[in-house]
C-alpha cells in the first residue's frame, strides 16, 4: 500500500491534541455554582478572622515616644542634639502584669532605610570578612569609602554609618531601682549571624582592622561595639546585624532586647518602671520620631488588628454575596445549573 500512503502523506494526524479535542473540564461561572463556594469561603474567613482578632486582642503593646518634641518630655533637653552624651529617662507604670516574654523594640518614624542609595551604599564583601575590601572598599560606599586622610572606612557606606546608637536600660522602681536584665542574644536573623556576615579571622579581632578607620558617625570602632561580650563584636554584633537588615517601610521598629531575666521570664509585674536612654541619634533633621516599644508576641507575630478585621469583613461580604447569588439563581437559573 505504499501508493495509498503517498497519496495521503499530507493528512494531519487525527489525535485529540491536534484536533483540539482533549478532554476538558469546562466550568461555567454562574450564580448557582458559586453559592457553596461563597458560603464556604465566608464561613472559613469569619472563623479565621475571629481567631486572628482574639489573638491580636490578647497581645499587649506599650509604645512610648521619647523624641522629646514636647517640652514636658524629659528627653526634650536632648532633642536639640547639642548636649554630648545626653541621658534622659522615660517613666511608665504597669497596672497589671505584662504577660509572656516581653520584647523590647526601638522604633523610628519617617526614616527611610528603603531609600535606594541607602541600601546600595554598603560593601557585602567587607561584611563577609574579606580583608581585601578592608583596604579598598567598593565605590558604592562613597562618600563613606575613605575618610579625608584617604584611610578606608570599615564598615563602609551609609548603611553602616547611620547605625542607630541610642542605648537603653530598663529599671523597675521598687524599693529604689532594680535593673531589669535585657537579653541581646539571638535578636538578629540566624542566617545573618551564622552565614551572611563574617568577621575576619584574626585574633584579636582588632588586628584585622589595622589601617582602617571607623565610620565617621560612630563613636566606637566596629570591633569594640560591645565591651561586655567579646563575641558580640565586629560585624557579628547583634545590634549591627539588626540595623543592617533594612526596614521595608519608613515607620518601623527593630528588636533591641528580650526581657528574659529570671524575675521577668513570665512577664513584667505591675509597678513603676523607668527607661534610661542614652540619647544620641538625631531625628529632627527629617521630622522623625523615636520610640520604645514593649510587646509580647503570639503565633501571628505582633499586635495587628487589621488582618483579623479584614478577614471578618471579607468573610461577611462573601456570605452576603452568597445570599445575592441565591436570589439571582432563583430568578435566572439555567436548566443545567445544579
Amino acid at each position, binding site marked *: 500500500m505504499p501508493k495509498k500512503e503517498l497519496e495521503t502523506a499530507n493528512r494531519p494526524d487525527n489525535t485529540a491534541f491536534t484536533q483540539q479535542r482533549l478532554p476538558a473540564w469546562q466550568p461555567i461561572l454562574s450564580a448557582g455554582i458559586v453559592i457553596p463556594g461563597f458560603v464556604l469561603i465566608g464561613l472559613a474567613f469569619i472563623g*479565621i478572622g475571629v481567631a486572628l482578632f482574639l489573638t491580636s486582642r490578647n497581645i499587649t503593646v506599650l509604645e512610648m515616644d521619647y523624641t522629646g518634641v514636647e517640652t514636658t518630655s524629659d528627653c526634650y533637653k536632648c532633642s536639640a542634639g547639642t548636649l554630648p552624651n545626653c541621658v534622659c529617662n522615660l517613666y511608665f507604670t504597669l497596672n497589671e502584669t505584662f504577660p509572656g516574654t516581653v520584647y523590647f523594640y526601638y522604633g523610628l518614624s519617617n526614616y*527611610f532605610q528603603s531609600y535606594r542609595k541607602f541600601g546600595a551604599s554598603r560593601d557585602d564583601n567587607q561584611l563577609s570578612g574579606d580583608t581585601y575590601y578592608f583596604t579598598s572598599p567598593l565605590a558604592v560606599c562613597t562618600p563613606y569609602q575613605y575618610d579625608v586622610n584617604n584611610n578606608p572606612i570599615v564598615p563602609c557606606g551609609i548603611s553602616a554609618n547611620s547605625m542607630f546608637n541610642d542605648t537603653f536600660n530598663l529599671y523597675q522602681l521598687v524599693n529604689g531601682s532594680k535593673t531589669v536584665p535585657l537579653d541581646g542574644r539571638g535578636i538578629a536573623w540566624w542566617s545573618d549571624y551564622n552565614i551572611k556576615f563574617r568577621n575576619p579571622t584574626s585574633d584579636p579581632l582588632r588586628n584585622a582592622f589595622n589601617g582602617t578607620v571607623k565610620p565617621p558617625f560612630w563613636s566606637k570602632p566596629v570591633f569594640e561595639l560591645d565591651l561586655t561580650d567579646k563575641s558580640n563584636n565586629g560585624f557579628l554584633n547583634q545590634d549591627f546585624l539588626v540595623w543592617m537588615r533594612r526596614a521595608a517601610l519608613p515607620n518601623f521598629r527593630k528588636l533591641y532586647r528580650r526581657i528574659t531575666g529570671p524575675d521577668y521570664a513570665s512577664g513584667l509585674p505591675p509597678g513603676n518602671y523607668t527607661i534610661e536612654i542614652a540619647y544620641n541619634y538625631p531625628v529632627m533633621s527629617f521630622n522623625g520620631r523615636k520610640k520604645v516599644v514593649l510587646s509580647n508576641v503570639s503565633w501571628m507575630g505582633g499586635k495587628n488588628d487589621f488582618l483579623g478585621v479584614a478577614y471578618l469583613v471579607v468573610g461577611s461580604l462573601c456570605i452576603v454575596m452568597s445570599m445575592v447569588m441565591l436570589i439571582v439563581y432563583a430568578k435566572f437559573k439555567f*436548566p443545567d445549573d445544579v
Partner: protein
Amino acid sequence: AFLVVTASWADNWQRAAMPCPSPLTLLRDSLRGQREHEKDLRILVSNLPYEGLPKTKQPNRYFPGNAVKTTKYSLWFFIPMNLYEQFHRFANLYFVGLAVLNFVPAVEAFQPEVAIVPICVMLALTALKDGWEDCRRFRSDRRINHTSCRVYSRKVSGFVERHWKDVRVGDLVEVASNEIIPADLLLLHTSDLNGVCHIETASLDGETNLKRRLVVPGLNTQDSSFEPQNFHCTVAVEKPNDNLNQFKGYIETSDMKRLGFGIDSLLPRGCTVRNTDLATGFVVYTGHETKSMMNKNGPQYKRSKLECKMNIDVLFCVILLFSMCLIGALGHYVWLESLPSVPLFLTPGSHGHMDSNPLSGLYMFFTMIILLQIFIPISLYVSIEMVKMGQIFFITNDVDLYEEKTDSRVQCRALNIPEDLGNIHYVFSDKTGTLTENKMVFRRCSVTGTEYSHNENGKSGKCKFPDRKLLQRVLAGGGDWDGCGGIRRCEATDLYLDFFLALTVCNTVVVSTATTARAQRQRVWHQSTSEIDISAQRCYVAESPDEAALVHAAKVYGFMLIARTPNSVKVRLPHGVELNYQVLDTLNFDPHRKRMSVVLRHPISGEIVMYTKGADYTVMDKLIWACLNTAQKNVAASTQRHLNWYAKEGLHTLCFAKKVLSESAYKNWSLLRQEALAAIDNREELLMETAVNLEKQLTLLGATGIEDRLQECVPDTVMALREAGVRLWVLTGDKAETAINIAHASRLLDQEDLVIHMNTDDKAVCKSILDRSLEEGRRHTRPGYPGLSIGLVIDGHTLDMALQSDLVDRFLELARLCRSVLCCRVTPLQKSTVVKVVRERLKVMTLAVGDGANDVNMIQAADVGIGISGQEGMQAVMASDFSISCFKHMKKLLLVHGHWCNSRLSNMAIYFFYKNVTYVNLLFWYQFFCGFSGTSMIDIWLLIFFNLFFTSTPPIMFGVMDRDVSAETLLGLPELYRTGHESEGYSHFTFWIAMLDAFYQSLVCFFIPYLTYQGTDIDIYTFGSSMNTVSLFNILLHLAIEIKSWTLVHWVTMLGSVALYFTVTLVYSATCISCNPPSDPYWTTQQQMSEPIFYLVCVITTVVALLPRFTYRVLSNTLAPTPLIRARHLERLDPAIREQWIKEWRGFRGGPQGGRSYQKQTQEQEPSRITPTLSITNNHLGTPTRSAVRHHHNVEL
C-alpha cells in the same frame, strides 16, 4: 568566424598558462563585470571553446552563477544582521534604550548588567526563531542547488551530469521530458521535427495547460543532428527582467545574419518539459536573474486589525507610564523639599554634596522609567508571535480542512493574521471554481433545433454517457461517412457530423502523454474513466475546462481528437476512420469577439471549412439571416429558445456554427491576414478586423450547455456564513442569468427575496434606480419591521457608474441593506475596486476568496485573502494569505478557527497588559514608601524571572489552546460568530476595564500586605517576597477565571508555573548569600514561609483582589449571558433538550437576517405592502414536495 573563435581560444589558452592574475587585473575585471551588468544588451557566447580555462579567462564570468540563495542571513553575519532587522521594531529599540539609560550612574535603577537580561532574552528568542526559519530556507536552497542536470562538455563530447549550481551562462543544457528546467534557456534544438517543445509553467504562473515553445526561428538546427560543439553564434539578450511574457534578443550567426527571437523561444527555469523527448538550450540567465527567481517575492506582511488596536493601547500605556514617572519625579522633589535638613540616610553624590532638589527630581524621572519599564509589555510581541505560530499549527493540522482528493491541507501563507478570520464582515467570492467546481460537465445540447438532454451526465457528474437518441442519430448517419470519409450525403446528417467535428477541433486542446503523478491524479479525479482503452496514455490539456468537456463529450459519440500540431489536427470518426485535417488558420478567442474559429481543409475533398464557437449572441448575430428559409429560421429560433433555457438553468452556453469557404475567398482573405500578421502598428486590431471579416454569414450548427456544478456543501456554507452575520458578495465575469441561478442554488438568494436588478448604460438612470431601490430597501429593513431580505444584482457597466464618486455612497448604503450582492460581468480590476471601496468606505473587515488569476487583485486588496487551489492553477493561492482546497472549508475556517483565534488572541493580549500593569504597579506604590527613590522591594532577578518564566507560559498556552465553545457548537450556531464583531473581542473598552482591574488588584496586592506588616520590623525583601508570591497567585488565578476549558495542558502549565516559582525562589534565596548586592534575598523566602501570617496574607489578598472580577463574571453570566455563555450551557444539555433550545434561540435572535418564520408572518400581516408577481415554480433546492411562492420584485428598467 569559426577560425576567429579558434584563434581567440588558442590565444586564451596561452594566456591561461600565465601565473595568477595581479590584483589590478582582478579590479579591472570586477569593474568590467559591473559595466557588463548595466548594459542594456548582453552579448553572450558559448562556453565550450573555453572549457577548462581558469575563471578569469571565461567570457561569461561576469554573470552570476546558477546557485540560488533565498536565505536572509549568512552564517558569519547572522548576529549583526539579525540585530539590525530586529531593531526595526520600535519596541525593541525602546527596551534597548532603557537598558542603555540604566548605565548612566545618575539615573540607574538596577545593576545595569542585570537590566539588560530581559531584552537580551527577547532578542535571543526572536533570533532563534529567525535562525530556524533561515535554516529551513538554506536546506531547501541546497537541495535545489544540488539537483542534477546535463550540461554539454567538450572533453567527453557529450552531456555530463552537473549540479544546478554549476550551470553558467553560455552553457548548453539538455532537458528531457518531465524534467525541470535548471536555468532560463534559449531553445536551440528539440527532438521534435517541427522544433516544438511543450512546457508546463505551473510553477511559474500557475497555468497548467501546456505551452508551445519554438526553436529560434531561422536557426537550422532541426534538419541534421545538432552538435553543440558547432554552435558558434553570438547571442544578444536584453537585461534580465521580471516580466514573464517579455523576452527579446537576437542570434548573430557566423555569417553575420541576425535571427530575432522572443518569449516563444525561452524555456524558463522551474518549468517542466512535457511531450518532448529532448530539448537543448543555451543558458541565457542564471540563478537570481532568471524569470522565476525575479518573480519570487517574499512573504507579504499584513498587519492584523487586532495588532493595530493593540498598538494604540501600547501608546496609552506609554502615556500612563510617563505620567506615573512624572508623579514619581514630583514626589521625589516634594519629599526632598519636605526634609528640614540632610538626614543621616540620605547620601550625597559622589562629588560630595547633594544635587539640587529639582535636578534630583529630573534624574528620578528617568530612574522611574527604567524601574517601571515593563509597564509596556516587553514580552507581548514575542508572545503574540509564538501564540500565532501555535494557532497556525492547529489550523493547518485540522483534519476537517484536509482534502483527500488533492492530498492538501489548508495552508497559512500569512503568519500574522489568523485572528482576522474571526472578525470578517464582508466576504467577496468568485463564482467559477470557488462556489462551483469548475469541472465542466457536458449537460445538454441542441443540434439543428432538436434538444438532447444528457440526463445521465447530470446525475453522474461526468461526461460518460451519450444521449441515446442522439447516439442513434449519429450512428445512423455514420455508415455514410465511413464510405467516403465524411463527404456529405444528406444535409441533416451532415449537420450532425459538422456539429461534432466542431466540438472536436474548434479549440486549443493539446493531446498530452504526460505521465507524471500529478497529471495522473488529475486524470483520475477530473476526467472520465473512458480513457482506459487505447487512449490510456492520452490526456487532454485544455486552457479552460469547457474545452476539455466538449472534447470529451464528442469522444463519447466516437469523435476523438488524436493529435494536434500547429498545422494539422487528427480526428478519429465513429467507425474508426482517421482523418488528418490541415489547419489553415486559427482565429483565437478574444474578449471582444467572444468567439473563436478554426479554418480547416478537408483531407479528401479539399474543401475549406471554418468552424466557429462562441457566446450565443456573438454567433447568432453572424448567421446569414437573409437567406434562411423558414425551416432554418425555426431552427434558429428554437436554438435560441434552448439557449435561454440553458442559461436559466445555470449552464454555460456555447453556440456552434460553420462556414464553407471557396478557394478564392479564402485566398483573398488569407492575403489580408498575412498583411495583418506582418503589420507592426496596431497589429492586434488588424488581426481582429480580419477575424471579424471572416466570421460572418455563418450556418448554425447547434448549441451546448455545460454545467458547472456547485461544490460540495456550498449552500450549507453560504447559509452558515449568512447566519453568522457575514455579507456575501459574488463577483463574477459571467452573465447575470447564470449568476442568479447559481446564487439561488447556493442559497445566496432565497425564493422570497426581493431582488433588485441594476443594468443600465445611462448614469442618470443608474442614479434613479439607486434612489428608488434605497427607498424600497429602507422600507423593508426598518427596525422593528422585519421585511423581505434584499438581493442586489448589478452588472459591470452599471457597477462602474455606481462606484463613481457621486453615486458611491448611495450604492454602498443600498449594498448595506442587501443581504447578498451579485456583481456580474466584472473585470479583475473591478473586483479589486469593489473590495477596496467597501473596505475603506464602510470601515469593515473584508475577505476575498477566489481561485483564478483574475481573483489575484481582489485577494490582495482584501484584509484577508483566501485562495482556493483548484482547477485554475496556483496564482490565486500564491497571492493569498490562506489557501484552502474547497469552498466548504470556509465554514470551519471562519466560524471555528477564526472565532477561536480571535477570542484567544484578544483575551491573551488583554491579559498581558493586565498582568504587567498589575505587577509593575506594586513597584509604583512602593515608591510612596521609599521617598520615590526608585527602590525595588523585589529582587531584580526574581522580578525578571517573574515576567519571563513564572507567568509567561500559562498565558501563551491560554492563547494557543483555550476553547470557549466547542467546534460542533460553533458550526451548529453560526450566530456565535457575530460575537467577534461585537464586544467580545479586543476593544479599547475591554482594555480600559482590564487596566482599571489591574490598578485595583495591584492596590489590593500592595496595601493588604502593607497594612499587615505596617509598623513591624519587616525588612525590604521579605516584604517584597510576600508581594511577589501574592501577585503570582493573583495573576495566575485571574487567568484561571478567564480560562474556559481546562485540559491536561492547562493544569500542567498552571501548576508547573507555581511549582517553578517556589522552586526557583527557594533555591535562589537559599543560595544567593550576597550574590546580587544591594539586594539581600538571602533566606527571606524561607523565613517568610515559616510564618503562618504569610499564608493568611496570601489567601485574603488573592480573594479580595479577584472578588470583583469573579463576581462580575458570575453575575453577568447569569443575569445577562452572552451568546457564547448560552452556547456553553447548551453544550451540557441532552441532545434532545439542546435541539429545543436552539430552536427557541433562533426564534429569539432571528430577525430579518435569520429566520424564515418571520417572512411567512410578514406575508400574512401585510399583504398589501408587497405587490409580488406570483408565479409557481419549482424551487431549486430540490425538495420536490414544496413549491414556494416567489416574489419577483424586479426594479428593472
